[in-house]
């Protein structure tokens, strides 16, 4: 089992202690196509669960990225500024967006585990 948790909006979060690393799923990057720009928030931004906190852009689409849990942005993946393709190439690794210090890890309970998410995606057709 992977340690990833997913939202129905296709964000993933990997939790280590009180911090979570966030990105978008392999399915999401596939739907968007070749990533050309990722608009990342400023470090220090506080977000509620479900708030818009980044935007992933391909040539013909832009998709908001929502916070899978509330917290404070403590680091962003600046490498995406010069190489947004990392989101396509390695969505769960080099393609991470940002790290959050979680305000309430309990919020993660409603997220899907990987197999549930994969079944969910399959259901989207």
């Amino acid at each position: 089992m992977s340690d990833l948790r997913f939202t129905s909006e296709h964000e993933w979060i990997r939790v280590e202690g009180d911090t979570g690393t966030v990105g978008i799923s392999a399915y999401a990057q596939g739907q968007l196509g070749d990533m050309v720009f990722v608009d990342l928030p400023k470090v220090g931004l506080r977000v509620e669960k479900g708030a818009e906190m980044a935007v992933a852009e391909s040539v013909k689409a832009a998709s908001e990225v929502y916070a899978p849990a509330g917290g404070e942005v403590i680091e962003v993946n600046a490498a995406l500024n010069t190489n947004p393709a990392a989101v396509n190439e390695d969505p769960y690794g080099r393609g991470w967006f940002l790290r959050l210090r979680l305000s309430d890890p309990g919020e993660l309970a409603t997220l899907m585990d990987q197999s549930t998410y994969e079944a969910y995606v399959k259901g989207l057709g």
Partner: protein
Amino acid sequence: MTTTGNRALMLEEPLLFEQDAPGRSGVDLPEPEDPVADRLGGLRRKGRIGLPGLSEPQVVRHYTRLSQKNYGIDSGIYPLGSCTMKHNPRLNEKMARLPGFADIHPFQPAATVQGALAVMDELANWLKALTGMPAVALSPAAGAHGELCGLMAIRAALEHRGDARRTVLVPESAHGTNPATAALCGYAVQSIPANGDGGRVSVAALRERLGGDVAAVMLTNPNTCGLFESDIVEIAQAVHEAGAFFYLDGANFNALVGRVRVADLGVDAMHINLHKTFSTPHGGGGPGAGPVVFSDTLAPFAPLPFLVHGPEGLRLAETGPAGAMPFGRLKGFHGQFGVFVRALAYMLSMGGDGLLQASSDAVLNANYLLARLKDDLTPAFPGPCMHEVLFDDRFLKDTGVTTLDLAKAMIDEGLHPMTMYFPLVVHGALLMEPTETESLASLDQFVATVKALAARARAGEAASFHESPTLSPRRRLDETAAARTPVLRWRETG
């Protein structure tokens, strides 16, 4: 590949900046008179601007070669759905260039521009007659600008009655300008489903969303699926019962001219794209004009300036008649006058009878495409359609060919592709609008070509589609690279 990179009439052309010879110019100007003390206050530019120097023959050749890399409605069928690419009559161009229209300044005394003001008045009267609406604002520069005009008037009317509403409802099939305009006007946008009755807005679903917070409903009719919103009168009633205003996006007015007056539909405001319905050229992206017709309720809130009749003839006024509460000004000067002249020349040429025949032929041509292509492509909705016909990409299922590939293959066949991937309510949309100025022979050639391409796709020739186009001035361009590392201007290197 040839030595030059040219291929017969397809001539490669460098950028202007790559043809520079310092000091050279394509104009001859006199030496400035004996130098006087300047009045620049020390702000004279220091250093070169960097503009290239070319002679007139070089400039003429440059743009002639560039023009040959473009497809226009003059070249052939241009069936871009929702864009109404009809023939652009050359009489319009000639009229707009009469010195009495072209060479007049926006701030000449009114007595010296009575003919120009009469053009505006006459155009306004045609638009009011064709729509049945009592008022028109001419100044908006394009469709989206007209939407802004309409929504600003709606907001002003609501503020006037002390009714702050915050939401605008827009069908999911709407042009992107609708939600963008509503947001620009300070409204929250809510999408309403548009697949209620086979591609139409469902009155029941709309009623559920209507409430005290809804300022306006924006609807396109015929809608972007090429279908008439049959329940429009009921929709208008529901909108008004909820205390909201009804905005009609007139981008597709070409289907209705002379046949339906929007006033009879219960519309409060609608923009009219003179560069679509009334034949003024698109010019590679503009200019257009988007006058807005208003109902009696909204008319007092129309923007500046006002065209008024007075004892000394027509004049443009900054204050309206009694009761006018203009929401402000939308445009510098008085609107797209040169476009007005062209549109009026078209209306006078067509007359009431010609405009009715045009909308009939536009609808006939679209239905002809539907009838001839329905067995080879997959119509999104059964006919009849209005002035444009929508197909989805089910006919390409399992062929490995996408809507985009098909469009690019059409380019090699000398056709301009239809609108692709819009509206968003069907998968892989192909939206075709032939317009009334396409001949039957042209439609037949288009049909035969599209049928042949569909057959090739079914025959497993996906690879050749993926290569296409191969015969155009450029093959597929790398849009991902363009967006990842934007190069938005020429720069001197080295």
